[in-house]
């Protein structure tokens, strides 16, 4: 394979050189961060530093940062907290979320519904943005929790979280946002967003996999979510994964420091790619909101061409992307995010997500613009429905 171009940074990112280096430099930091001796204290200092870095990244206090295994755990935990509150007799018994959340929320919602909990989904508009009027209609004094992601992983559409928080708080509800895709790409401040809970994962911003954060505002309720130890003030037991946490700390430090630079660079690459596609391929549809958009995400539908085929022809050219086609997921239904935005089923099957990262270059983008048009032409020439 001559070239290898990774354009699937919303799935996961390569670790930053700085992150790899801090993890290598601290290989001997194997002590149990809860132990009293020097080895333990040193590990504890590393964990503490990382907590400070993560807190700074999201404009929080370090007492509000809980380490988890990643955003899926953080998201599950927030819904478990809501469940706990409802089970303990809260007068508020309803949760409001949307149909475009990450599967760790979508599936949790299905599960809770099957147990009889009441959960409503706000509508999204054709750009994949949650509609404020829909949120407004769903508010009421029985709402316990509102959970809306900061930016969508498939379309890149940035959600009006600050406005939604205001509406949630007006009726006394708690606000959660899954900021996994937004961290490091746009400024994320729990204060500006008005979030009571926030989820993030280190591997989406050049940190290691298997580690993340649940932010819980000091005033917001929290219950032990992993029992069995005094770690994380007794809420989340388990010996600290020192190296991963320190790696996340470094990734958080870099993300806070570079966010504007990163934003501008990713957007320039994304726009170069978008223009190249629109100018060189007939009949394409750009999905998502083009104004309120995560800078590295470009979601495109190619009518009459099926996504898995496009993905695999690109893979054979060394270009790595993802698709909303059902065929790539093993299910029969294409991207629920695109369908919720009202996209035609065929267009969802024919969607490709390019997600750029800091290690992509203009040359990478130009290579895609060179390789993609003949692939689309080829897939379309084989198709039963020709454009």
């Amino acid at each position, binding site marked *: 394979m001559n070239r290898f171009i990774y354009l699937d940074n919303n799935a996961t990112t390569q670790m930053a050189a700085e992150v790899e280096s801090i993890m290598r430099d601290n290989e001997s930091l194997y002590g149990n961060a809860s132990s009293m001796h020097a080895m333990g204290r040193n590990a504890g200092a590393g964990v503490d530093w990382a907590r400070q870095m993560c807190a700074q990244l999201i404009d929080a206090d370090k007492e509000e940062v809980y380490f988890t295994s990643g955003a899926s755990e953080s998201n599950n935990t927030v819904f478990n907290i809501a469940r706990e509150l409802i089970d303990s007799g809260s007068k508020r018994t309803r949760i409001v979320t949307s149909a475009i959340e990450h599967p760790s929320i979508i599936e949790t919602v299905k599960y809770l519904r099957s147990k009889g909990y009441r959960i409503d989904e706000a509508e999204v508009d054709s750009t994949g943005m949650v509609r404020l009027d829909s949120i407004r209609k769903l508010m009421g004094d029985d709402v316990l929790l509102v959970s809306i992601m900061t930016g969508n992983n498939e379309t890149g559409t940035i959600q009006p979280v600050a406005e939604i928080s205001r509406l949630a708080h007006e009726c006394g509800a708690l606000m959660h946002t899954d900021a996994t895709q937004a961290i490091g790409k746009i400024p994320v401040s729990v204060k500006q967003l008005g979030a009571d809970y926030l989820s993030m994962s280190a591997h989406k911003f050049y940190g290691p996999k298997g580690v993340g954060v649940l932010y819980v505002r000091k005033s917001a309720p929290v219950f032990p979510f992993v029992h069995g130890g005094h770690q994380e003030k007794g809420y989340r037991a388990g010996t600290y994964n020192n190296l991963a946490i320190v790696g996340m700390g470094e990734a958080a430090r870099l993300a806070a420091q570079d966010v504007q630079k990163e934003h501008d660079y990713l957007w320039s690459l994304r726009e170069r790619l978008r223009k190249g596609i629109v100018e060189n391929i007939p009949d394409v549809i750009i999905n998502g909101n083009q104004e309120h958009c995560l800078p590295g995400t470009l979601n495109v539908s190619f009518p009459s061409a099926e996504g898995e*085929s496009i993905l*695999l022809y690109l893979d054979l050219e060394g270009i790595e992307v993802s698709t909303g*086609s059902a*065929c790539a997921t093993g299910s*029969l239904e*294409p991207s629920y995010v695109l369908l919720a935005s009202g996209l035609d089923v065929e267009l969802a*099957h024919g969607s490709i997500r390019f997600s750029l990262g800091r290690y992509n270059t203009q040359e990478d983008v130009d290579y895609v613009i060179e390789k993609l048009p003949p692939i689309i032409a080829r897939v379309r020439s084989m198709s*039963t429905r*020709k454009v």
Partner: protein
Amino acid sequence: MQNNSFMAQWVYTDTVKDHFMNPRNLWKEGEDFQPDGVGEVGSLACGDQMRVGIKVRDGKISDLRWLTYGCASAIASTSMMSELAVGMSLEEAYHLTPQMITSALGGLPEHKFHCSVLGDKALRAAIDDYLEKNGLPNPYKTKVAKIICECKGVTDVQIEELVKEGKALTFEDLSRLTGCSTACGKCRNRIIEALEDFKHIYGKD
């Protein structure tokens, strides 16, 4: 990158990859191919659709062209079907099964089997079309189970059995037991029609 100790195989077998990269008997744009029969199955909504055109000489498939909207395994399986079918008698071709296509491809992942191997059905539809156009009797049609729900590969024979045994008496029963009509939902009316027919035949209504 790619300097790992772990190197995975490609998504599909080498044969699938070969047919995906070099599809055989593709119906090229502007090609002068006058089919004696044409069949089309699947739908764009389901993510897989196939059109097959056949030429028939002396009761045999003498030539075949196809088009496919679908994933890599859909393209490869239609391509493989075309290679298997050319030279077959109409009867042999009518009884070409998804299993024959899949094993010629060296296997497909389980979840790809039902949704992407539609070539045999498109071929049968083309043979039906050829016989009908030429006013010829169709001795094969009645003997073969017909797919009603294309997404989940549910046949009329399956529905018949479930109704006959009294296991399914409503659309919901069928959907729960076979998964029919749970994907694109387009077959709903045809499922209900078949259900009502069999309920009548087996006195379950």
